[in-house]
């Protein structure tokens, strides 16, 4: 009825027409008045979407925008709170690092007595406790520095004086704006440093693809592009859609049995390659091409470029990566990896023998290592072909070696091996060499010779220099240097000569500390004397390449231990580490500052968007009161006029004049 009107007709006009028309007019006027009253009362120009569908759709979209942006403001506020609270904890951490630095300076410069050291150790223990409580700080029941494991206290002390990180590396995100995620948790790794550098296996485990291998795990984990391929034999061609494929087997199965002309196609997985031929094996022309803009044939390496390629067509190495479910029999190109045996993980003064026997899959291996209690995280390396182990236990030395046998070596996980750079030994301090010769070795015949390690880069270089030294070529007196097969470190050996008072001694030469640095001479001693097993003299060096967590917890524990043990030599290293820790915390605080700025600018822009949307919605939906009231007045006037008209029409009649 909204737009209806009652027409005036030409010709005869009857009283009933007049009446109906007037009544209709009154009706329309009343409806219009009602509408205006509703507009004024509700404040909305229309209340039903159908009154103005175009505007209503825009209003719905604007309302959605406001609701979504409103929530984003809530998200930003929440992120601001969490980041702000984290920042406060980190500011305190900065202070704590500065305190630790002063304690270090005090210890290095002035303090000598045991009781003074004791006092500093006590202070440091307090600082460490405070650091643990900072790391475990909670806000609204969330452990701020636990990563994704928000209900787990991230830092706990362990029985061997270490501090274990129990969190994970997940960052919690919230939506700051369409397509813009804001992190509202701080990574402990970035703020404090909670894990060691990964010990990445030297052994390429070279997994073999199987029919069950997922396409996403091929191509070094980059995956391959799904799509279709086209086969042709020169006369016939067929397009085979492989877009639904999820595993290699899906591709092979789908291709198998397809016909080209009247010849059947066969596809097999051979090693890490796909092989395609005619089933009858009679040769002929078979060409394979990508379809459209697809890349599947290229990715599988079966695209043919010559007119008559040789059969079978063999694809490229699909380069699968390890997954948790990769079977050990798939390793080493399908030869399988015998994981029977154990590896030893040493954390400080505790050894953990981990028996990997019975593992079927990579996951079994990872679980055994991770659940060993050693405080390490085993995983697949980022290149997807090796194992990788990190320590999460701060404050103690970490190493991997053999229990017996050679499993750690076969996995390439031993932390001491010939390819380690000498500069990396001893927590990266290297070995201290003076001018000229470094080692003096006294042979079993009482003669001595000196060796310079100049030019040696790696442990193997040093071993080669020693073993190939011109003065070390007499088989009866030969000194053989080697990497310890079982433990970590070097082993020097020489046969017994049978002479009286024979002995085998290694010492540093002049100012060089190389023998000490290589772990052959214990710290504080002048020389190492070989022990005899009846056949050979042997000097077994200690592990000169211990690993450790690179972070603040570790540094403070190390500092505490160094002061307690009065180990002045460690101070320089610890001082550098403290600087690194301070820089790390400062950098994270800087990033929080940047994030907070971003949050602030997003808040402004979101508020602005909400404001604009509200304005726009108001323009569309809200009643324009001035015009509504004006129209109401004119409608009322019209209504009154209609009433008068009706009355006037009924009052005049010819009968009045009869």
């Amino acid at each position, binding site marked *: 009825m*909204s*737009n*209806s*009107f*009652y*027409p005036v*007709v030409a*010709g*005869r006009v*009857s*009283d*009933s*027409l007049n009446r*109906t*028309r007037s009544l*209709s007019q009154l009706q329309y006027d009343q409806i219009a008045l009602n509408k205006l009253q509703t507009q004024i009362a509700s404040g*909305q120009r*229309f209340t*039903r*979407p*159908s*009154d103005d*569908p175009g505007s*209503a*759709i825009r209003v*719905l979209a604007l*309302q*959605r925008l406001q*609701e*979504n942006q409103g*929530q984003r403001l*809530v*998200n930003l506020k*929440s992120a601001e709170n969490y980041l702000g609270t984290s920042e406060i904890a980190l500011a305190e951490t900065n202070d704590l690092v500065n305190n630790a630095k002063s304690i270090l300076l005090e210890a290095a410069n002035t303090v000598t007595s045991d009781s003074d050291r004791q006092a500093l150790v006590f202070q440091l223990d307090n600082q460490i406790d405070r650091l643990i409580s900072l790391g475990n700080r909670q806000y609204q*029941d*969330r452990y701020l520095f636990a*990563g*994704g494991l*928000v*209900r787990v206290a991230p830092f706990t002390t362990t029985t061997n004086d270490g501090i274990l990180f129990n969190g*994970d590396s*997940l960052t*919690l*995100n919230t*939506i700051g704006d369409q397509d813009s*995620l804001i992190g509202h948790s701080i990574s402990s790794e970035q703020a404090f440093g909670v894990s060691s550098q990964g010990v990445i296996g030297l052994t390429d485990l070279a997994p073999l693809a199987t029919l*069950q291998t*997922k396409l996403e795990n091929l191509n070094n984990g980059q995956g391959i592009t799904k799509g279709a391929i086209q086969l042709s034999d020169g006369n016939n061609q067929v397009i085979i859609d492989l877009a*639904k494929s*999820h*595993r290699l087997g899906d591709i092979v199965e789908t291709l198998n049995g397809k016909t080209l002309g009247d010849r059947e196609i066969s596809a097999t997985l051979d090693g890490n390659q796909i092989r395609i031929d005619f089933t009858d094996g009679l040769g002929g022309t078979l060409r394979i091409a990508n379809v459209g803009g697809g890349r599947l044939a290229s990715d599988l390496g079966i695209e043919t470029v010559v007119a008559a390629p040789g059969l079978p067509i063999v694809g490229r190495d699909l380069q699968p990566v390890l997954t*948790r*479910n990769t079977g050990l029999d798939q390793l080493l190109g399908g030869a399988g990896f015998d994981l029977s045996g154990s590896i030893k993980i040493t954390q400080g003064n505790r050894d953990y023998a981990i028996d990997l026997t019975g593992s079927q899959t990579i*996951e079994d291996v990872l*679980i055994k290592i991770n*659940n060993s209690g050693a405080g390490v995280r085993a995983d697949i390396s980022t290149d997807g072909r090796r194992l990788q182990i990190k320590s999460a236990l701060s404050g103690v030395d970490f190493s991997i070696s053999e229990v017996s046998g050679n499993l750690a070596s076969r996995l390439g996980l031993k932390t001491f091996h010939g390819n380690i750079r000498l500069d990396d030994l001893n927590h990266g301090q290297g070995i201290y060499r003076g001018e000229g010769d470094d080692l003096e070795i006294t042979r079993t015949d009482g003669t001595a010779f000196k060796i310079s390690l100049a030019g040696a880069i790696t442990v193997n270089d040093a071993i080669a220099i020693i073993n190939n030294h011109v003065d070390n070529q007499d088989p009866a007196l030969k000194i053989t240097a080697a990497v310890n097969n079982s433990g970590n470190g070097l082993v020097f050996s020489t046969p017994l000569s049978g002479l009286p008072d024979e002995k085998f001694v290694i010492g540093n030469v002049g100012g060089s500390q190389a023998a000490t640095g290589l772990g052959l001479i214990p710290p504080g001693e002048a020389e190492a004397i070989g022990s005899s097993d009846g056949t050979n003299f042997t000097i077994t060096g200690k592990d000169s390449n211990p690993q450790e967590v690179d972070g603040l917890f570790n540094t403070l524990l190390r500092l505490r231990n160094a002061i307690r043990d009065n180990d002045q030599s460690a101070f320089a290293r610890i001082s550098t580490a403290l600087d690194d820790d301070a820089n790390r915390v400062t950098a994270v605080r800087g990033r929080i500052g940047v994030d907070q700025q971003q949050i602030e600018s997003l808040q402004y822009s979101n508020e602005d968007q909400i404001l604009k949307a509200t304005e726009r919605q108001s323009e569309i939906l809200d009643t324009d009161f001035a015009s509504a009231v004006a129209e109401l007045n004119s409608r009322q006037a019209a209504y009154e006029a209609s009433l008068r008209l009706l009355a006037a029409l009924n009052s005049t*009649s*010819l*009968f009045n004049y*009869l």
Partner: protein
Amino acid sequence: MSLFSSIQQSSNALRVAQLGLQVTGNNVSNANTPGYIRQRLVQAPANGYQQGNLVIGQGVVAVGVQQQIDYFVTDRLRETQSQLSYQQSLVDGLQNLQDALNELGDQDISSALSRFSNSLQDVANDPQSNSVRAVAIRRGEELSLAVRTLSDKTKSVQQQATQEIATVSTEINRLTDSIANLNKRIVETEGGRISNSDAVGLRDERLSKMNELSELIDFKATEQSNGAVTIIVGGDYLVADGFSRQVKVSLNSSDSAQPTEIRLIDTDSKLNVTGGRLRGLYEQRTAVGGSFGSQLDSFAKNVINIVNRVHSQGQGSIGFSSVTGETVVSKPKSPLEQAAAGIDIDNGSFRIDVRDAATNTSKSYEINVRQLGDFSDTTAEQIASSINAIDGLEASIGNDGRFRIKSDSESISFSFAEDSSGALSALGINTFFVGDSASNISVRNELTKDSRFLAVSLDGPGSGARNALALTDAFTKGQSQLDGLSLQENYESFVARTAQDINSQQTITDGLQNFRNALEARHLGISGVSLDEEAANLLLYQRAFQASSRVISVANELFDTLVNIV
């Protein structure tokens, strides 16, 4: 010519003038009677007689009383009325739905969608809080309740239409009965005379009954030579002479949107209408149950499927010790896509992580779901046996057709992840919503009981809330299943379509209303009483009476003169 005949002539005129007065009086009396057709006295010069060379007129005679009506206009008016009633009734039904949608405010489904999506973001903000999770679940319940309520309202609009159809059936019978009766009486009254309007009052009544009927159904009316009208609806006689055919409401099993229809009792065939309120009611049910209802259902289904697919791949803050699928698997031995109605599966796999609290170990297992469209595709039973093969888990398809997975021991719990196949969602495992339409959408019972099962994590039970953001994305970001629209936009486009439909329907209705008004105006112009005109007629008849009386008086004087001569 004699003086007598002059008197006779004038006395005829007097009679006609009196009749004229009566007709005028009748018109004046009925000036306000609805449906009254004004009448006119038809008068004609009486036949003259020949006297010698002269033909002398005998005055005036009243031929009849005629209704002033244009049947072309009334027929058009009725047809238009039928179409208008049809459109009006359709608009009314759609308006009811629009009122049920209650959009443009903040208590509508679009707001419920936003609130649910927003509450999931709150979970991402505070993944540690169980109460925030509980609120998110509550928001999910609110959304499903809003959808169910709308579905119920849709049904009640349909039911109302069905009830009205029953009323229309009764009305049709009443009107056709009385039209048939009036036919009889008109034929009797007019007795075969051909003025076509002798039974004036009866004809008025019949016309108004026909007008009433035209609001209910559209029909063709033809007047027979005897004065009776025949009413034909969609090729079937409804009224012929004094007879009417009765209609009844019958159940219709062939079309679920049209559970009842009006049929002719004698032939049990559907009354085929193309207008009137009846057609409007029929179409209301189609529009409501068909178009609107199915759009609402498909929206609900989209919400269920998309949210479930994301949710089923996530983990709560604890793992499951047992879980029961919501989908009834009717064919466990058939490929999964045929195992139950409406299952949507891709070729892929999903992961089950089994955690043993006693040894603190968590192992993951890949369950392959082959779906290449052939007979080797994975069946529900095969999935069950793959899961069964996992140490610590038992899986089966129960007698009720539901998929069940449970752990062997108290220390073992399990969770799901990375489902590229959609099998979990399809089997109703670890889903958020249950149901498959707007009428039965609800939140999974386990979730309302224990908010810790809200699957907001992707990195293992209790770790972070990446899945909460993924769930939010389903509402705010484009989905491939929805041609790039988000769920919110999907719903808006549904509202927009409804609003557009109503708007265009309203425009049609307004057009018809104007047309009907124009026709009614013409009809009233022709058939309505004009008092001024009647007053003029009154004067004319009065004057005619006075003049004829004067003629008689003059003739009488002349007569006296002649008599006095004698």
